[in-house]
C-alpha cells in the first residue's frame, strides 16, 4: 500500500490538465495557463491523456452537458476542479492535485458491462458507471467515446442559442467513423447507438459517406465556447455550421475589448493600456495559431511574451522581447509555404460580411492575417506606455470595431462556414485560428448600449 501511494504521488506530480474554458473567462484562462507553465503541468490535447479536468469560468446554472461528457471520457485516476475566479485558481489547482492523490473522485469508479452497442465487438467496459448526474441519464452513460471535440449536441437545450439545431438527433455527436451508412441520403439508421453516415457528393465528385462531427467546445488551442458542426468526408470539411455553447450573461466586459468598451462608455482609459491590451490580444491569438500550426516553440514564446505584456513590463523591454519573435515568424519561409493560399478572404467579401478587424486589413489568406497581427503587435508594443487617453471615437479593438451594429466576432463567425468548405481538417483548424473569434463578446450585456447579441 505504501509503495502504491508513493507511486501514485510520483505519477500525479505532473497531472495532465485538460482545460475546459467557458466563454467569458479569458482572464481566468490566461492566469491558469501561466500557472500551469510555472508548475510544468502538461496540457492534455484530449481527455484520454488527462488526469485533471479544470473548468475555467463560472458554471451555468445547470451543469453543462459537455463538461459532464468530458469528465466521463477521462480515465481514472482523475479529478475535477473549477477555477471560477483568478483569486481561486491556484487553490483550485492545488485541490485538484490533492484530490488526485486521495482519490476523492474515484468512489464512483466501477466496472460495468454495457448492454447496448455490443453487436459482435464484445464488451465495452465502462469505468465510471453509476452516473454522477443521474438526471442526464442516457448521455452520461453511453458516452464513453467522449472526446472533447464531440460533445455538444442537441440534448442540452440551453446550449443552443441558435435554436435551429434543436432537431438534431441527440446522438449525432458520437458519430464515430466506423458508423458508416447505407446507400442513399435519407437512410440515417442507428447502429450500436451510433448513427450511420449518409452519402453526399464531395469536393472531388465522388459520393462518399459524410460524417457529422461537432468540433469543440473543448479542444486544445481552440476559441473557448465555439462549436463547429462539421460534415466531414475523410478529413475534408464539406460543410460547417457555427454554434456557441451557453454561457451566463455578465456585466463584466469581455477581457480583450475592455479598454475600448470602457472608453466608449465614457470612462478614462489610458492609450498605453489599450495598446498593451491590443498587443497581448494579438499575442494570444498568435500563440494559439502557432500551436495549431505545430510550431510549439514559437507558440510558447508568444504566450510568454503575452504574459509579460499583461504583467505590465515597460514598453522598451516589451519591444525588445517582441521584436525577435516577430522577426523569426515573419522570416519563416516554411510558415509562409504552409499557410499561403489558405482561407483566402478578399476584403470586399469581408467588408460585406461586416468584418472590421485584422481580417479585413489583411485582404488575403491565413498568412496575410498573421502578418497583420505581427505588424499590430510590433506597433502596439511600442505604444504600451504612451501618454494620453483613449478617445470615445477610438473604437477599433483587437478583432474590429466595438461600436458596430454587429459584434466583431459575430462577423468572424459569419465568415467561417464559407472559408471552411472544402478545406482539409488541418487547414480548417488553421483558418479558425487565424480568425480567432472571441466568444467572450457574446457573454457581455452592456446595460446602456446594447443587449446580449444573440444573433
Amino acid at each position: 500500500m505504501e509503495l502504491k501511494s508513493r507511486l501514485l504521488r510520483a505519477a500525479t506530480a505532473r497531472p495532465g490538465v485538460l482545460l475546459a474554458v467557458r466563454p467569458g473567462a479569458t482572464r481566468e484562462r490566461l492566469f491558469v495557463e501561466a500557472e500551469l507553465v510555472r508548475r510544468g503541468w502538461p496540457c492534455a490535447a484530449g481527455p484520454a491523456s488527462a488526469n485533471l479536468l479544470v473548468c475555467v469560468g463560472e458554471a451555468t446554472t445547470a451543469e453543462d452537458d459537455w463538461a459532464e461528457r468530458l469528465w466521463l471520457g477521462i480515465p481514472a485516476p482523475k479529478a475535477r476542479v473549477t477555477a471560477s475566479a483568478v483569486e481561486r485558481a491556484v487553490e483550485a489547482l492545488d485541490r485538484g492535485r490533492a484530490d488526485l492523490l486521495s482519490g476523492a473522485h474515484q468512489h464512483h469508479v466501477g466496472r460495468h458491462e454495457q448492454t447496448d452497442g455490443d453487436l459482435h465487438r464484445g464488451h465495452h467496459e465502462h469505468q465510471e458507471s453509476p452516473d454522477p448526474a443521474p438526471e442526464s441519464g442516457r448521455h452520461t452513460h453511453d458516452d464513453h467515446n467522449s472526446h472533447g471535440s464531440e460533445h455538444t449536441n442537441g440534448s442540452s437545450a440551453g446550449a443552443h442559442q441558435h435554436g435551429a439545431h434543436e432537431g438534431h438527433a441527440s446522438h449525432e455527436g458520437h458519430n464515430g467513423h466506423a458508423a458508416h451508412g447505407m446507400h442513399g441520403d435519407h437512410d440515417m439508421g442507428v447502429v450500436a447507438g451510433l448513427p450511420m453516415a449518409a452519402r453526399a457528393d464531395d469536393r472531388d465528385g465522388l459520393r462518399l459517406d459524410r460524417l457529422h462531427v461537432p468540433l469543440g467546445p473543448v479542444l486544445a488551442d481552440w476559441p473557448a465556447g465555439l462549436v463547429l458542426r462539421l460534415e466531414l468526408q475523410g478529413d475534408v470539411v464539406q460543410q460547417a455550421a457555427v454554434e456557441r455553447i451557453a454561457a451566463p450573461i455578465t456585466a463584466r466586459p469581455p477581457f480583450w475589448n475592455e479598454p475600448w468598451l470602457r472608453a466608449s462608455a465614457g470612462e478614462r482609459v489610458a492609450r498605453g493600456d489599450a495598446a498593451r491590451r491590443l498587443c497581448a490580444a494579438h499575442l494570444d491569438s498568435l500563440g494559439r495559431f502557432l500551436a495549431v500550426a505545430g510550431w510549439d516553440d514559437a507558440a510558447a514564446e508568444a504566450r510568454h511574451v503575452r504574459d509579460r505584456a499583461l504583467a505590465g513590463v515597460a514598453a522598451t523591454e516589451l519591444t525588445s522581447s517582441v521584436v525577435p519573435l516577430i522577426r523569426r515568424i515573419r522570416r519563416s519561409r516554411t510558415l509562409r509555404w504552409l499557410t499561403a493560399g489558405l482561407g483566402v478572404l478578399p476584403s470586399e467579401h469581408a467588408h460585406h460580411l461586416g468584418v472590421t478587424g485584422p481580417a479585413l486589413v489583411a485582404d488575403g489568406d491565413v498568412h496575410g492575417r498573421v502578418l497583420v497581427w505581427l505588424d499590430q503587435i510590433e506597433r502596439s508594443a511600442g505604444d504600451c506606455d504612451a501618454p494620453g487617453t483613449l478617445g470615445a471615437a477610438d473604437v477599433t479593438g483587437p478583432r474590429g470595431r466595438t461600436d458596430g451594429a454587429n459584434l466583431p466576432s459575430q462577423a468572424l463567425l459569419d465568415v467561417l462556414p464559407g472559408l471552411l468548405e472544402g478545406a482539409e481538417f488541418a487547414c480548417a483548424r488553421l483558418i479558425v485560428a487565424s480568425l480567432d473569434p472571441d466568444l467572450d463578446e457574446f457573454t457581455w450585456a452592456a446595460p446602456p448600449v446594447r443587449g446580449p447579441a444573440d444573433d
Partner: protein
Amino acid sequence: MNLELFLLLASALFCVGLFGALTQQSIVMLMMGLELMLGGVILAAASAWRYIAPAAAEGQVLVVVAITAMALEMATGFAVVTALFRSREIDMTDMAAELKE
C-alpha cells in the same frame, strides 16, 4: 518440408481466394480474393524454383512477375472502382453487371 507440402499450401490459398473472388459482391472484396489467389501463385512459383530448378533464375523471375501482377491488379482495380463510383455510385459487381442493360 518438401515440394508437395508447399504446393498444397499454395493450392489451399488459391482456392480460398477463388472462393472469395466468386462469392463477394463488393469489388474491393473481390480484389482481396484475387490477391489471395496470386499469393498462392507466388508461393507455388517459389517452391517450384527451390525444389525443381534452383540453379535457373527463371523461377525467381516468375515470382517477380507475379508480384508485379499483384500491384497492377490492385492499382487498376482501385482506379476502376473510383471511376465506376464517380459515374454511377457503384461498388458492387452485380450493379456493374446491370450497367450493360
